[in-house]
């Protein structure tokens, strides 16, 4: 059955949840989340059986909606992320209560991710400028609300305002970029655009201009360097599940659309031929941005003391690595196209960040603030949590035998393949700095004495989930065939 049915199912699920929430108040957050995740699991199982564009593709819909393997992979990612966020929100509810006052509204906080997930899935398969714009907007509006959800917590509101204003500006630039691209090529479908761009000559300036505008928009979305100012504040202010969702969901979606656009612009002009064509310029821009992002992300993370801000900076530096992979468009000696390297890295990035945020969720819900010192002596207080966090931090730092290492390995291989040595040096510096600030977390967990002795209650559900995540980090690290299998 055609792919776009999936999104409809998800929206339907959202509507049902909405109704349940209003008519069966006693269901409570846990019930809602349970139903939500079950529904999403069903959709996840349906995913492989979905058919792509029928061969004769008469239907007009396929002009706007592509269902190639990459899109299906990202849909899978989006679904898994949302399920995890739902679980996290259940754990996070007690903290939310404190900030929502008696006005309630916790229920909606569980429904919004479902709708945003639909948006993410649309984004994954959007290969037309308009559908990109609309699906992007569905996701961003969803995030505006989720970020500013805790209306009584001043941090959350502040983050919301910042995210909204800067988000709106980036949407403005996005529309402007689309306008110019539409102006030059007259088409809105990416594949057609790439062919038209190949034929155009003499218009390099305008093409580059539109690409720059689009890069501004997606740079913001993905937190690349010139536009990553918002990331630390929003991650710190927003409720932890939203921060997790932002760091994984929106980044993944941003990257898939960006990779689609870069493919459209570069066409088959993979290797940098250095003949001054605009494709080279694009690659050069991407390289510069990637380098700057890695540098900024890893160096700024060093003096951090707040765990969420640390995760924010680490997500910036990871974005840098992915941008680096993106910049090496067609690695010659590797059979993985840069799109697949990006997908693999994101798939690797997902469990690690989710596990880290999940642990923070549990710890924060019992302790309050999110400084790294809150993790002090976690090793003694609840060894299980400490172990999970250790595994995820090792993954983020890229220690071998974890999936993070494999992700970085492929990025390094792609960069080596194209011979970007300066970038390699910066990447090594970034990874090394990574050792430093991730080790700070381990240090505080195992070396510092716990400030208060009470063991942290870890619900059975979250314990199972965390174990699953930790296993995923290590298991996928050992044999990467699994992820590649999905990708093919």
């Amino acid at each position: 059955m055609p792919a776009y049915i999936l999104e409809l199912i998800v929206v339907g699920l959202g509507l049902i949840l909405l109704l349940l929430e209003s008519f069966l108040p006693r269901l409570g957050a846990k019930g809602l989340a349970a139903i939500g995740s079950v529904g999403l699991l069903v959709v996840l199982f349906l995913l492989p059986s979905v058919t792509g564009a029928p061969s004769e593709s008469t239907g007009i819909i396929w002009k706007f909606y592509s269902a190639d393997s990459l899109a299906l992979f990202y849909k899978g990612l989006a679904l898994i992320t949302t399920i995890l966020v739902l679980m996290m929100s259940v754990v996070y509810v007690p903290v939310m209560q404190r900030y929502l006052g008696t006005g309630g509204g916790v229920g909606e906080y569980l429904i919004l991710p479902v709708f945003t997930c639909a948006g993410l899935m649309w984004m994954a398969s959007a290969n037309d400028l308009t559908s990109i714009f609309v699906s992007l907007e569905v996701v961003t509006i969803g995030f505006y609300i989720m970020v500013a959800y805790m209306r009584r917590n001043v941090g959350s509101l502040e983050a919301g305002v910042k995210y909204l204003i800067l988000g709106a500006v980036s949407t403005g630039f996005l529309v402007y970029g689309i306008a110019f691209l539409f102006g030059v090529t007259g088409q809105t479908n990416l594949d057609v655009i790439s062919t038209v761009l190949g034929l155009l000559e003499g218009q390099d300036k305008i093409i580059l201009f539109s690409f720059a505008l689009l890069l501004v928009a997606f740079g913001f979305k993905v937190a690349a360097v010139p536009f990553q100012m918002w990331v630390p504040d929003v991650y710190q202010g927003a409720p932890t599940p939203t921060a997790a969702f932002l760091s994984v969901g929106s980044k993944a979606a941003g990257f898939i659309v960006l990779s689609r656009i870069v493919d459209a612009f570069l066409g088959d002009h993979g290797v940098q031929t250095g003949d001054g064509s605009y494709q080279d310029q694009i690659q050069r821009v991407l390289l510069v941005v990637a380098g700057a992002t890695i540098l900024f992300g890893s160096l700024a993370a060093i003096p951090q003391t707040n765990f969420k801000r640390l995760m924010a900076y680490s997500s910036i530096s990871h974005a840098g690595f992915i941008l680096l992979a993106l910049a090496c468009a067609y690695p010659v000696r590797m059979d993985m196209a840069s799109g697949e390297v990006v997908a693999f890295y994101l798939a690797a990035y997902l469990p690690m960040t989710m596990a880290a945020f999940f642990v923070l969720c549990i710890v924060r819900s019992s302790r309050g603030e999110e400084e790294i010192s809150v993790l002090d002596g976690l090793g003694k207080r609840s060894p299980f949590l400490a172990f999970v966090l250790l595994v995820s931090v090792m993954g983020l730092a890229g220690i071998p035998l974890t999936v993070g290492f494999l992700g970085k390995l492929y990025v390094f291989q792609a960069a080596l393949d194209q011979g970007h040595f300066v970038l390699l040096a910066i990447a090594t510096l970034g990874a090394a700095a990574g050792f430093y600030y991730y080790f700070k977390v381990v240090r505080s967990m195992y070396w510092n004495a716990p400030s208060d002795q009470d063991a942290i209650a870890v619900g059975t559900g979250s314990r199972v989930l965390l174990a699953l995540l930790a296993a995923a980090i290590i298991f996928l690290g050992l044999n990467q065939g699994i992820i590649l299998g999905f990708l093919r």
Partner: protein
Amino acid sequence: MSPALLLLLPLLSVVVIFFGTKWSGTLSALVSVASVAGSLGVTLALFSTDSSMVAMNWIALGDVLQVDIGLRWDRLARGMMFVVTLVGTLVHVFSLAYMREDEAKARYFGCLSLFMFSMTGIVLADNLVMMFIFWELVGVSSYLLIGHWFTKASAADAAKKAFITNRIGDFGFLIGILMLFGLTGTVSFTGLENWLAGGHAGASAGLLTAAALCLFCGAVGKSAQAPLHVWLPDAMEGPTPVSALIHAATMVAAGVFMLVRVGFLIEASETAGLVIAWVGGFTALLAALMATQQDDIKKILAYSTLSQLGYMVMVVGLGSGEAAMFHLYTHAFFKALLFLGAGAIIYACHHEQNIWKMGGLKTRMPITFAAFGIGTLALIAFPFTSGFFSKEAILDIALHENKLLFLIAAGVAFLTAFYMSRLLVVTFLGAPRSEHAGHAKEVSVIMFVPLLILAFLSVVAGYKPVAELLQAQLPDVHWNWFVFFVSLATMLAGAGLGFLRYLDKRSEPKVIPVLANKFYFDEAYGWAVRNLQDGLAWVVRGLDALFIDGLAVGGITRLTEGVGCLFRRVITGNLQAYSYLFGVGVFVLIYFTVFLR
């Protein structure tokens, strides 16, 4: 009954003592004496046969490198082995009594057997690497023996000093071996000889001289020649039988033995020979001068050993190994005798070593006095004693080869006679200068029997039939009246002068500071070690901490920290600043993409 047994016996005794009789001193003493006596017996048994065999293959790397523990039992080895085992046995017997009440007797005898094992190893070695192995083992055993009473700070320091100076010598020795190996591809003596015989000498003369000098450097370290002689006087800290065995007869002689072993190499490059000769001569003169002003009986004997060794090295340098070996044999006997005698005196005077506190022992210890007297006569080459014949040979060769050296040799002979007679007069004649000396009585039988045997040997060893028996290849020197006359005159003058000056004097009549404290060698070396080595080490440590640690590593961490804070300061949290930076970012990005091609 192969030479390998010689090697195994002492090793066996070391193992037995270490594992078995560690707890009982006397038992281990007996085991070690038995082993040394056994090896003496085996040496005598094998006196006639000439054989060389490979006991074990140590390193075998295909055709590239072949190093094995081989034994070479020829004339030279037999002679040396006889001396080593004979003196060894006598010293063992002597130290049975001397060390009776020492609490670590087991360890003492264990080390003695270890020393005998390594000494045998050097003598029997048939290749340079094996010789180097036992060379170092001898160094270690002398370290252990000198530092026997290690609770005494001075003994511990002396042991350390001895080992390190030896090690410096070994440094040169090893480089010599490496050069030879590099040149010829083989390490065994026979291999080297045929290589030399094969006419390659011309090709790398310079290198050969360098290699020879390096090997000589090893000998300098071991036989305590000029620059590296500082450790021998301090080595007297060890028990006297040890000094007798190691610092008279065997270990110091090992250097000379090695030089004779590679004699063919020294002939190949005469410049090396000359240098060796001059170093030998210079050491002899230097040591003799220093000996005249020493007060400690053992130090005097130590310096006399130094000067005699100088003689031997000089002669080897001048080309005749046989004369050197002959003098080595005779010297071994009478020097061991003198040392054991000194040991007896010290034992009798309750460990008193300063000669000015002794005196009048002639009457109290007649037998020791007699033996000691004979030893002294042999040392100062009194006619028809063993010393006379061997020194005669040396002087004769020196006369033929190098006139200047002959003069030095003569001067040294005079000085030897002078300080030996000084020693004899002050210790034995006149009145006892301290109550210890007052009621010194003759030592027990076990102690003076070895003295007598040695005395007999030191007289007899010079004559031809006995020398032949001792496998010493008599140098083909013919009787030369002039040489005889010169040596006789110097001997009489020296002895007379010594006798006259020191007859019943209470203290040293004229102290020559320069000689008294040994040409300030020790102070110079001490300064060098303190400033050069430790100072440099301290400076290097400082530099290392400053540059590599501070600058490189610390620098980078500070840099990253700084940049991190810089970035952090940028994010102030103020929305307008963000939007401003956002705007600037957009401007830069667009400008870069569109316009910068």
